[in-house]
């Protein structure tokens, strides 16, 4: 039997491919370097944190990323625009609908067909994106509770998330990676009875959120554990390019759904929750979770309004074809475009350069909110306890698929 060498093992492979910043010989005697991850559940994926400790105090954190690098940007250069959508799903796999929405909007803007889309398409897009936003926040809050020792909310939230995933599966055929929102339209109209199901779900979820509030957010242990931990001042957050619930928890009312007003968001009535510093300081871990829970309430409001519109004003008709405006050939004119949208984690931006001659982007860059948000972890964790490092990391809510792309 032919023996094929699959991997040449050498002792220094790891130290050569991802060398530590701190060398053991150069440390002072009270200092210690420990390695958190890449295979550790509380790092939420394959993230390696090199932590310099003095006793239990964190002196420095050096994140090592790239373990899940799948060459998204290289792949896009050899694929037509519409075939990139499944890859976009796999960036932030917990909020795939939102990423698709952002990407489709970007290509539509390049083609100049943004205003032509039927309103029903836009409302369905917003409806599924908001459902997905709730699902993403559920994972964020649930795993965060688990990170710091509250196991029950995780099961409750995963149970409720499953309802959303099944609804989205009903719509698109897939649980997590949908390929549902296409450039210029949708894969298909929502199934008959979906609006009804959404209404039921909203009615079901509202009391559950009250339960979540009392079992997790108002829980004394949870408050003690998260209030005044990882305080992020607003100016620092902006300087680090932090967006999404993290920035809003620091007290800035900045939500691209309102600021840019893309899609049909200007026609919908919803608020932007911000951190209040109610239990501790403004911008601590408790605030970040509070903002996420409030956002779920706002998303429910949006869903209710979308369902209202979809059943009354923009009803299902026989003539309605969600693929009517899907271009057969996507060839944008030459130029540079930066398009952004509010994802569950923050600002997802796509930079496109089209050369005007081919159906493939000359360059497509994804600016993932997780990647940028993660870069603040050394700043937040420095000077705190090692146990707080986990609490801070969880509150950032990263998805490694998007960090490493």
């Amino acid at each position, binding site marked *: *039997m*032919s023996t094929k060498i699959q991997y*040449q093992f050498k002792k220094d492979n790891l130290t050569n*491919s991802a060398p530590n910043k701190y060398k053991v010989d150069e440390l002072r005697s009270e200092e210690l370097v420990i390695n958190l991850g890449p295979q550790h559940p509380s790092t939420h994926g394959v993230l390696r944190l090199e932590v310099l400790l003095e006793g239990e105090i964190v002196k420095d954190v050096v994140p090592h990323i790239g373990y899940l690098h799948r060459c998204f940007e290289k792949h896009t250069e050899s694929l037509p625009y519409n075939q990139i959508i499944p890859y976009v799903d796999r960036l932030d796999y917990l909020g795939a609908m939102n990423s698709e929405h952002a990407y489709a909007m970007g290509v539509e803007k390049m083609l100049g067909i943004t205003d032509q889309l039927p309103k029903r398409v836009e409302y369905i897009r917003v409806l599924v994106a908001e459902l997905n936003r709730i699902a993403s926040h559920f994972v964020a809050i649930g795993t965060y509770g688990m990170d710091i020792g509250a196991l029950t909310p995780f099961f409750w939230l995963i149970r409720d998330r499953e309802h959303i995933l099944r609804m989205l599966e009903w719509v698109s055929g897939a649980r997590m990676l949908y390929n549902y929102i296409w450039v210029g339209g949708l894969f298909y109209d929502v199934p008959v009875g979906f609006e009804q199901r959404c209404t039921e779900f909203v009615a079901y979820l509202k009391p559950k959120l009250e339960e979540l509030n009392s079992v997790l957010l108002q829980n004394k242990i949870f408050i003690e554990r998260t209030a005044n931990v990882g305080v992020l001042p607003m100016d620092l957050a902006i300087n680090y390019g932090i967006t999404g619930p993290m920035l809003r928890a620091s007290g800035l009312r900045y939500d691209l759904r309102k600021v840019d007003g893309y899609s049909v968001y200007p026609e919908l009535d919803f608020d932007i929750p911000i951190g209040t510093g109610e239990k501790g300081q403004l911008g601590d871990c408790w605030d970040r979770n509070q903002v996420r829970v409030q956002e779920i309430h706002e998303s429910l409001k949006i869903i209710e309004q979308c369902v209202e519109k979809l059943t009354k004003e923009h009803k299902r008709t026989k003539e309605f074809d969600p693929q009517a405006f899907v271009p057969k050939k996507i060839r944008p004119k030459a130029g540079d475009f930066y398009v952004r949208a509010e994802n569950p984690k923050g600002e997802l931006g796509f930079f496109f350069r089209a050369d005007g001659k081919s159906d493939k982007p000359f360059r497509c860059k994804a600016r993932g909110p997780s990647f940028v948000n993660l870069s603040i972890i050394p700043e937040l964790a420095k000077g705190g306890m090692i146990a707080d490092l986990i609490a801070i990391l969880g509150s950032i809510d990263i998805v490694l698929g998007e960090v490493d792309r």
Partner: protein
Amino acid sequence: MLEEIQNILKSALGDDLIIKLDESSSPPTIVVLKENLLAIAHQLYKHEQLYFDMLSCITGIDNGAESETMEVVYNFYSIPFERSLMIKVMVERDEKAEVPSLTEIWKTANWQEREVYDLFGIHFNNHPDMRRILMPEDWKGHPLRKDYQDPEKYRGMNVTYDRDEESQTFEKNTINTKSEIN
């Protein structure tokens, strides 16, 4: 809007800073020389009528071997004035390609510049921590360059592989195993 920004920059820094304005791209773009980038960035950040406090995105672009240029594109956003701006810098396309780092103004530039360095090989001067970020430290080459060739092997693992050849060896192996069992 672009004219206004241009005028403010000209009055603050002198006339010959800006090479080209481009209204057609979205958001509107200013092309500058890399020697002037740092001065312009300071103005963009500090000037009270500009105040671009958020650096959203840094993108590297390789224009291919025949054009001999690479580009670095910065996307700024001003939260109080609610406007966006794109700044482009042209870089020569060789191993010594250099751009001043903006880390001293926007901390977010740290990781994003590291990413551009990693994938394009553009160095950023005065960057505090210029290491690769996504690829392994001992990787050869910068993958997003247009003429990048994958190495054949990385530590004995095939980087590129021929699908047919792979399935053939797989079949061969399975057959061998079967015959061994028999």
